[in-house]
């Protein structure tokens, strides 16, 4: 791996959904193994563990089972992150379990993903959980979905089986908001169409999974239109050299900022222009999402953490009434009229649950108007009233300014993930 090539790679984050039976761990093991991302000592440990269990052949799925309880029970409990790189890209996999009780983990893994791989067992076709996974991927705004129809070896690599499942998935997905759908017939176990093209499915002309992962266009996934800069931290060195320096630090959540740009500060509404932009010790003329920078302004305005610097002719919405799709992540269900701490961009607030509009049946996509109990792993549309205004965009427009979490003030646990509608 040459240094020059390495410095020009970009980053693709993807999530994988599917249960153990779908061969998800085997697929990840295959991606890692065939891309030569597994080290000898890791392989040695897996071989040892395989022989201890006495299941004969080396079980690639063991590469991804992390915690002792998981190894003992043979299931994945929590989100695990894996890393591999090819000469083209670096990949971060959020490996999440597929069982219904772990919807919260899939939501967690999906929140930062550019792409979701959803596994379907070719013998079984679409299962309840397939729809659930596709819905969550769409709800979390993952721009690219890849359905891998796995275990093609067990259906004699039959094109009709693949086409039939693809047709059903396309019908279902038309109800979802997904920009980019892909279908690949694979066998993770045998390696067909994962990294290497299969010679047993001549009828399939599309790309292998690895080719798709390496080449799919992701530069357009970021919002570079709406300027949004949530202020995270105020930097005041108070040294002789930087006596009057007052910089606003944060990670750009949307758009491109240039020195000289007119900006408005929320919630105060004061306007100014950008004096300088700093990337570490370097001064730059422009910066864009998701860069972490420091900005200074030409006017002395009182700005603190939780404020947002935006473009005056392209403002986010500002409101204390927030209409949100909530995914509930905690054993203690959502309390009607309950109060929670809320985190949105760099802003902390408190909120009250005003109303549960409906709960989703995530298997049928039906809206349940009668049953409004939102418990662990449920998804519901909820109206919140916040103590201070939030400055936000719709989640579909900007995943950074459209997302929030709720925190139980008694236990301090993160209890819900919210996508602003």
């Amino acid at each position, binding site marked *: 791996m040459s*240094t020059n090539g390495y410095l020009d*790679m970009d980053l693709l984050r993807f999530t994988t959904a599917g249960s153990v039976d779908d061969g998800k761990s085997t697929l990840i093991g295959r991606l890692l193994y065939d891309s030569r991302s597994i080290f000898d000592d890791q392989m040695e440990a897996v071989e040892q563990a395989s022989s201890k269990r006495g299941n004969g052949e080396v079980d690639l799925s063991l590469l991804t089972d992390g*915690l002792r309880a998981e190894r003992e029970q043979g299931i994945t409990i929590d989100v695990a992150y894996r890393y591999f790189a090819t000469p083209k890209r670096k990949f971060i996999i959020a490996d999440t379990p597929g069982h219904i009780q772990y919807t919260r983990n899939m939501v967690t893994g999906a929140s*930062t993903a550019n792409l979701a791989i959803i596994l379907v067992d070719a013998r079984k076709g679409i299962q309840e959980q397939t729809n659930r996974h596709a819905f969550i991927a769409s709800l979390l705004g993952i721009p690219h979905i890849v359905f891998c129809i796995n275990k093609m070896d067990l259906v004699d690599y039959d094109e009709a089986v693949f086409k039939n499942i693809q047709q059903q998935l396309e019908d279902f997905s038309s109800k979802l908001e997904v920009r980019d759908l892909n279908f690949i017939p694979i066998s993770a176990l045998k390696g067909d169409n994962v990294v290497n093209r299969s010679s047993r499915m001549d009828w399939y002309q599309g790309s292998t999974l690895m080719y798709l992962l390496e080449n799919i266009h992701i530069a357009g996934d970021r919002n570079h239109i709406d300027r949004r800069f949530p202020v995270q931290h105020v930097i005041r060195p108070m040294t002789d050299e930087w006596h009057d320096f007052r910089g606003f630090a*944060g*990670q750009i959540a949307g758009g*491109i900022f240039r020195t000289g740009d007119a900006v408005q500060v929320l919630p105060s509404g004061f306007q100014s222009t950008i004096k300088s932009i700093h990337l*570490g010790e370097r001064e730059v003329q422009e910066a864009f999402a998701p*860069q972490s920078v420091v900005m200074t302004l030409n006017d002395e305005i009182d700005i603190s953490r939780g404020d947002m610097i935006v473009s005056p002719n392209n403002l986010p919405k500002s409101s204390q009434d927030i209409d949100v799709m909530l995914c509930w992540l905690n054993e203690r269900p959502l309390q009607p009229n309950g109060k929670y701490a809320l985190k949105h961009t760099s802003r902390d607030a408190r909120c009250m649950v005003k109303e549960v509009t409906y709960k989703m049946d995530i298997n049928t996509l039906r809206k349940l108007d009668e049953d409004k109990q939102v418990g662990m792993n449920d998804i519901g549309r909820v109206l919140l009233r916040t103590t201070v205004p939030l400055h936000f965009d719709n989640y579909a427009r900007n995943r950074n300014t459209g997302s929030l*979490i709720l925190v139980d003030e008694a236990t301090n646990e993160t209890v819900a993930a919210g996508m602003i509608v």
Partner: protein
Amino acid sequence: MHSYRLTHLKELESESIHILREVASQFDRPALLFSGGKDSILCFHLARKAFFPAKVPFPLLHVDTGHNFSETIEFRDRLVKEHGATLLVGSVQKSIDEGKVQEETGYYASRNKLQINTLLEAIETNKIDCAIGGARRDEEKARAKERVFSHRDEFGQWDPKNQRPELWNLYNGRKRPGEHFRAFPISNWTEMDVWQYILLEQIPIPSIYFSHEREVFLRDGVLYANSPFMRLKPDEKPFMKRVRFRTIGDMSCTGAVDSPAATLEEIIEEVASTRTTERGSRMDDKRSEAAMEDRKKEGYF
């Protein structure tokens, strides 16, 4: 026409800086765990970027096992002086002298596990509410499931089955009095990312990462530096060899690699072609399949 595309290293850098600023904003008394190894050096480098032109707003905390490579300590002291950083030291030797922990005995005696006690004590004495660590998720299976903001109870324990969900870039650092957090800003970096970034940014690192002549001995297929801290078995004979260290930890558990790599470029070549993980030469991880998970539950970082 500009390209508004970030390379993966720049994206990782941006993510890490965001995390470090979040730590500084959400906690009253954070500290950066500093071992003198490349990962903690990287964290300090990123922290300097995060707060420039202000100074890094938290101290460095070194948990000193007393079994150090002298080159690491010299490097640490030079870095602290050059950047005007504050250094706190928690001493395992002191914990032993005070009878709080007992030294292991035998050939495989290591102070690695004893660090846990000293670390937790240093956190308590200095009232640190968030200890920033340079751990990476690619290092080890238990670490692959660690959160960026990792909650610890009042005994400093990690409960892997009851971690807070972590979504988007929203980090929940709320806690009760007496509890603290660990934060891992370089969670998503791999060993290769770290080396490439060190080269890109020309970050100084201790000399023992580069090939040098040293007295070593062979144990269980791993080369160890001969030092007063190691008790040799009768059949173990020290000899001179050109080696370097892939990781820097306590001398009693950090293995050397037989390597001619004397520049960053050569190290990167070597890392790219090497077929074992970094921690493959760490005696502390070899104790059992769940060695890291067990130590982490008790409060290891």
